[in-house]
């Protein structure tokens, strides 16, 4: 079990993340018991096996690499209780767009989890883009990070957390 932040609280979590090592392929890799987040390629190659093996106690989810968008998951969203967005480096901002698209374009209601190089100072931005679970990098303190969600109380833009921009609420 690891500790992650979920809906602004630190919780114990049992999901594992399957990553393809050198030489492993989506078609041949051993599928671990859930709860497991598998790469998009594994999901597409082994969807029926993964779904057959899954259960409420051992669910399956998918993680998107930084270059991968949610487009190819559009038809599968109802089958996924967790979609993770990987940040290979915290300075790689592609995951912010992926999360917003999942929520705003594809209407995904399940958990979106940030994995990878996830650092406290980006939590505020990630949360605005619709990410609601955060597997912080192992050396970071999740309890201390909780305060950073409230860095800015009333930001200007429309985003997932507040679909109306400030200018539409300002006069009221």
């Amino acid at each position, binding site marked *: 079990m690891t500790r992650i932040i979920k809906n602004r609280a630190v919780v114990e979590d049992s999901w594992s993340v399957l990553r393809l090592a050198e030489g492993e392929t989506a078609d041949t890799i051993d599928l671990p018991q859930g709860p497991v987040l598998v790469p998009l390629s594994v999901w597409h190659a082994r969807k029926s096996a993964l779904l057959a093996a899954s259960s409420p106690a051992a669910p399956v989810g998918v993680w998107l690499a930084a270059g991968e968008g949610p487009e190819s998951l559009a038809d599968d969203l109802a089958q996924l209780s967790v979609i993770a967005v990987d940040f290979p480096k915290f300075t*790689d*901002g*592609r995951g*912010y767009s992926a999360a917003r698209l999942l929520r705003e374009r594809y209407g995904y209601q399940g958990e979106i989890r940030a994995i990878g190089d996830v650092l406290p*100072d980006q939590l505020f931005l990630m949360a605005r883009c619709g990410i609601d679970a955060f597997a912080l990098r192992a050396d970071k303190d999740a309890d201390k990070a909780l305060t950073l969600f409230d860095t800015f109380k009333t930001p*200007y833009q429309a985003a997932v957390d507040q679909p109306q921009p400030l200018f539409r609420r300002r006069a009221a």
Partner: protein
Amino acid sequence: MYRYDNYDHALVQERVAQFRDQVRRWKAGELSDEEFRPLRLQNGLYIQRHAPMFRVAVPYGMLSSAQLRRLAKIARDYDKGYGHFTTRHNLQFNWIPLERVPDALAELAEVEMHAIQTSGNCIRNVTTDQFAGVAADEILDPRPLCELLRQWSTFHPEFAFLPRKFKIAVNGALEDRALTWFHDIGLHIRKNEAGEVGFRVIVGGGLGRTPIRGQVVREFLPWQDILTYNEAILRVYNRYGRRDNAYKARIKILVQALGVEKFAEQVEAEWAHLKGGPATITQAEYDRVAAFFNPPAYAQLPAIDEGFVQAQAELPAFARWVERNVRPHRVPGYAAVTLSLKKPGTAPGDVSDVQMDRVADLADRYSFGEVRVTHEQNLVLADVRQDELQALWQDAKAAALATPNIGLITDMICCPGGDFCDLANAKSIPIANAIQAKFEDLDYLYDIGDIELNISGCMNSCGHHHVGHIGVLGVDKGNEEWYQITLGGRQGNNAHLGKVIGPSFPADEVAGVVEKLIGVYLDNRHEDELFIDTLDRLGVEPFKDKVYGDRLKGKKAA
């Protein structure tokens, strides 16, 4: 100008608290240098040669006298008594210890200023025409839309970690005075046949290592749609821009790789989902912001003030200053005045704390308490009565701010260069000073007339050398500082890049080379022909021959 309400105030105050906490955690070892780096950059803080360089935003170039006094105070209390205006409406301090930056930010927040996103791979400070609101050729004052863009881009959650920096410029007049063809997004305010206001949207321009003129992705975008359309552009860039090589990560490289038609298709496809959404600007919001930019309480004055005309006839020095530094105004009896920060012997764009206080006083006395910053690194008092120009000139002279050289060769754009900047390959200020010294004689300077000379200390091109009529670029050759010369670049509606004329020169030869280039012009010009016109007519060959002739005959050039 725009004034903060409680929301705006809260955001900049929260920013100060955030950064103070980040500095504390960095010092405590909770944030590594690598983790802290983009956080400090997004507050304009670089680690430089001497101390951190701290870049403060002057959004779309507008400053109140109170803000300028605060900048003067920060220069005095935190720095060594001066600051440097850049080509992108920023003021840079060079000597503020990192530990004191949170306090400096707090002082800025009190006067509705900040350093938000003045660096880093995010949307930078929006820039525009320094004569916004007063120019005779204006279609629409760009500043309300600039402020809306400022708010939209401030802490944008999706676009804080782009592949690379992202710069937006807006121009609202017939003549482009904001270098819009060389920005990541350039916006031209225009009216369509029905008289509706919108933008021509240009994407993928930029200077730097790979200078490229931007291309039009949309000829007319209704103004209400600018935020959603920008989101579409930024989203395509954020997702598909290169991240494997920092030198190829600007949006211009993506636009080149896809071709502008394909890029535009992707943007339009993305925008189809966003168009008409909540980020569509409402008329009420536009009106709220635009009200801050209503014209000041101008007096009813004759179009031409007799005393002003007479003073020019009697005082040649005043007349010279008027000729170079004073521009017509759309309101009868008023003028727009440029205060030169290009006094020979000083670093172009540098201004002392005392001068900042003086400019604030001049703004209060003569120009409704407002000042603009130009991308040519000067200051503008935009609303001066003709009958007060002479008094203003006297006061500005006393503060060393009345050098009558706007648009002349000594009014050069120049980055801080190797004296301050860690990125620089070569110094630029001594080159600027050497050129200024060659052209100190006013008759000679005036005889040469309008010309733009731009100097950058490295290929990052902060000194816009690519678009100077004469461009000077510092390069590193075996640990020595050399300078490459380009000719024929220009800004404006016909903006394009200059071409390198040949091998580079050592530092002590640059001013002499510039003098030779000017000599070719003076020897060959037709009546009323400017440097750039003669260059266009003759081509670069006679200029190259003059500069390289001796060298090529003798030894092989370096």
